[in-house]
C-alpha cells in the first residue's frame, strides 16, 4: 500500500509537471507564437469570444503567476479551450470523441503484444540457443527497426490495396450506423486488425528481448536450481519459478515503454486514418490548431500516467514484497 501511495505521489508530480510544461512552452518560445495563434482565430471569432479564449489559456493581463493560476484552474475543470479546426467545438469534446478509439486500439494491441512477446521471451530463454531462440529475436529486432508508420504503410499497401483483404482505413464502415449491433461490432474489429497488427509486430520484439534477458538472469538463481533438483515438471519450473519472477522487472519496463508505444501507435493511426488521437494530432499540426495540440499533449500524457498507475498496482499485486510492505 505504501508503495502504491508513493507511486501515486510521483504521478501527481508528473501530471503537474506536464501541465506546467504545457503552460510554459508557448511563453518561452522565440518570437511571439501566441499572437500568431490568436491571429488565426481572428475572423472566426468575435472579440468577446477571443477574450474568453485568451482567458481560458491564461493569457490575461495579470502577472505570469496569476496567469498560471487561472490556467491551472481551467485544466483542473477540464477546460482546454476551443479548437480552431473544429470551431466552435471545445477541445475537450473533440478529444473525448477520439479518445475511445485510441484507447481501444492501442490498449488491445499493447496487451496482445506484451502477452505474446513475454511468452516468446520465456520460451526462447528456457531453451537458450534453441531454434526458437535463434530465429524469433533476430526477426523481431529487424521488424522493430522499421518505423511503425512505415510498417503500417507496407501492410496497408500489400494487404489492403493490393490483396484487398482489409479495409483501407477508418474505424468502421461508414455505411453502418454506430450502434450496438453485430454488424457494427464486426466492422470495428475488421478495421482494427491491420493497425493493431502493425503495433504488435513493431513492439513485440522489444518485450520478447526484455523478457528473455530477465529470464536468463533469473534462471541463474538458486531457487531455480533447487526447483529442478526437486524433480518438478519442466513446465512448472519454467512458469511458476522462472517466468513468474522474471515478469516483475518486465512489468516495470512495460510501464516505462508505454509512452513510446503510444507515440508509435499515434503515427500508425495516421496511416490508417483511424479517428483516434493520432489522427487529431495530424489535423492539429496541419491547421496549426495550438489549443488542440496542447489538449492532446495533456490528454495523452495523463492517459499514459494513468496506465502506468495501473501497471504499478499490477506490480504491487504480483510482488508479495510490495503487496505487504
Amino acid at each position, binding site marked *: 500500500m505504501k508503495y502504491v501511495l508513493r507511486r501515486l505521489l510521483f504521478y501527481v508530480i508528473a501530471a503537474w509537471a506536464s501541465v506546467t510544461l504545457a503552460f510554459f512552452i508557448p511563453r518561452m518560445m522565440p518570437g511571439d507564437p501566441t499572437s500568431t495563434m490568436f491571429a488565426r482565430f481572428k475572423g472566426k471569432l468575435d472579440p468577446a469570444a477571443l477574450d474568453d479564449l485568451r482567458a481560458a489559456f491564461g493569457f490575461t493581463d495579470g502577472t505570469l503567476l496569476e496567469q498560471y493560476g487561472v490556467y491551472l484552474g481551467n485544466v483542473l475543470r477540464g477546460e482546454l479551450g476551443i479548437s480552431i479546426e473544429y470551431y466552435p467545438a471545445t477541445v475537450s469534446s473533440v478529444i473525448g470523441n477520439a479518445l475511445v478509439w485510441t484507447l481501444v486500439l492501442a490498449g488491445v494491441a499493447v496487451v496482445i503484444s506484451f502477452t505474446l512477446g513475454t511468452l516468446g521471451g520465456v520460451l526462447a530463454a528456457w531453451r537458450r540457443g534453441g531454434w526458437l531462440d535463434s530465429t524469433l529475436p533476430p526477426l523481431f529486432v529487424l521488424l522493430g527497426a522499421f518505423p511503425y508508420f512505415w510498417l503500417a504503410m507496407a501492410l496497408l499497401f500489400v494487404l489492403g490495396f493490393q490483396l484487398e483483404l482489409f479495409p483501407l482505413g477508418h474505424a468502421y464502415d461508414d455505411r453502418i450506423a454506430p450502434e450496438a449491433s453485430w454488424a457494427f461490432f464486426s466492422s470495428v474489429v475488421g478495421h482494427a486488425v491491420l493497425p493493431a497488427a502493425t503495433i504488435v509486430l513493431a513492439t513485440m520484439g522489444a518485450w520478447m528481448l526484455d523478457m528473455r534477458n530477465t529470464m536468463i538472469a533469473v534462471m541463474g538463481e538458486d*531457487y531455480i536450481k533447487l526447483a529442478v*533438483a*526437486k524433480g518438478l515438471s519442466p513446465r512448472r519450473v519454467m512458469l511458476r*519459478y522462472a517466468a513468474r*519472477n522474471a515478469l*516483475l522487472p518486465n512489468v516495470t519496463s512495460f510501464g516505462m515503454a508505454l509512452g513510446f508505444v503510444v507515440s508509435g501507435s499515434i503515427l500508425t493511426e495516421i496511416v490508417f486514418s483511424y479517428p483516434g488521437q493520432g489522427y487529431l494530432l495530424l489535423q492539429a499540426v496541419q491547421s496549426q490548431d495550438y489549443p488542440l495540440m496542447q489538449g492532446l499533449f495533456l490528454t495523452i500524457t495523463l492517459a499514459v500516467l494513468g496506465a502506468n498507475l495501473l501497471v504499478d498496482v499490477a506490480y504491487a499485486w*504480483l510482488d508479495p514484497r510490495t503487496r505487504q510492505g
Partner: protein
Amino acid sequence: MSDALLTVEDLCVDYVTERGWLRVVDKVSFEVQPGEIMGLAGESGSGKSTIIQAILRVLKAPGVITGGTVRFDGKDVLALDKRGLRGLRWCDISLVCQSAMNALNPVITIGEQLGDAIEAHEGVRRSQALVRARELLELVGIEGSRVHAYAHELSGGMRQRVVIAMALALRPRLVLMDEPTTALDVVVQKEILQQIIRLRRELGFAVIFITHDLSLMFELCTHVGVLYAGRLVEHAPSQALFERPMHPYTLGLMRSFPDLHGEGDDLVGVPGNPPDLWKPPKGCRFHPRCPQAFADCSTRAPQLRALVGHRHAACHLVDQVDQLDQLDQLDQVDQEESP
C-alpha cells in the same frame, strides 16, 4: 562394501570454457552408508559444491561430468535420462542450498514450495500437499500457519529451516547439504545443526555435509573427506581424523578457523592460496604450500592410499614409511611445528 547407499568412484568434472577444458574434480571416490553423515571439507574452489551438484546432475554449464561412476542404491545415476532423474531427485536424494536467502522463490508462498514437490512426485491434491507442508514446518519447529508466508517475511534462520524441511518432504534417504549454516550467526547455526542431528536420528536419512569449518564437521559427521584443488587428499572416520590428521593440509585446515562472516577463505593455518587449476603444480598439488614438502613432492603425485582403521590419505609422508612409524613421525612434526 556393497551395502553403501551412495558410491562415488573416480568422479571427474570439467568446466568447459573458451580456454578449454578445466578439470575441477579429479577422480574423487567415497561412499556414504545408510544413515551416516559424511562430511566434505576444503577451501572454496576445492570442488565440494561441484561434487554434490554433480551427484544430482544439477550442475549447470559450464560443468560437465567427464568420468567415473555415481551409484545410488545400485542405480547408475550417470546413465539416467531426464525421466529417471526426476524419479531420483527429491524422492531419494534432496538438496539444501548454500544460501537460504536465494533458495526460496520470493513470489510464491513457502507452503506452495514445500507442497509442490509432494504434488509432483506423489500425485496428491494441492490441499493435501498443503497439510503435509504444515507438518513439515512443524517438524523443523515453525508454526504450521506459516505455510502462507513468503520468504521475505521470515528470518534467515527460519528460511534455512524451511529449506531443510523442504529437503525432507519426501523422506529421502540422502540429503545433500551445501554449507547450510554459512550465512547465519553462531547461535542460529548451533540451533540448525542440532535440528539436523535430531531429524537424522528420527528419520534416519544419510547426509553429505559440506563446510570449510572442520570443527563443526567433527561434531556432526561420522566420516570426513578433505578436498584440495579438486582431489580428495584425506578420507577417514571423523574421530580418527580429529585425533590424528595424516595430511599436512588437513592439519592446516584444523588449525585455521573461519572469520567472523563465516567465509573462512583465508586459512590462517595454511599460508598461500589454492593453486590455479589451469596450471596445477606438478606432483602433489599441495606441495607449494606444504610445510613438510620434500623433493619427491614436486615430481610425483601421491595416490590416495588405504591405511589402517578405514583411513585414506594421499601424501608421500604416509607412503614413505611404515604406517605406525609414520604416525610417530607425524607426532614429532606436529610438536616441532606448534609452539
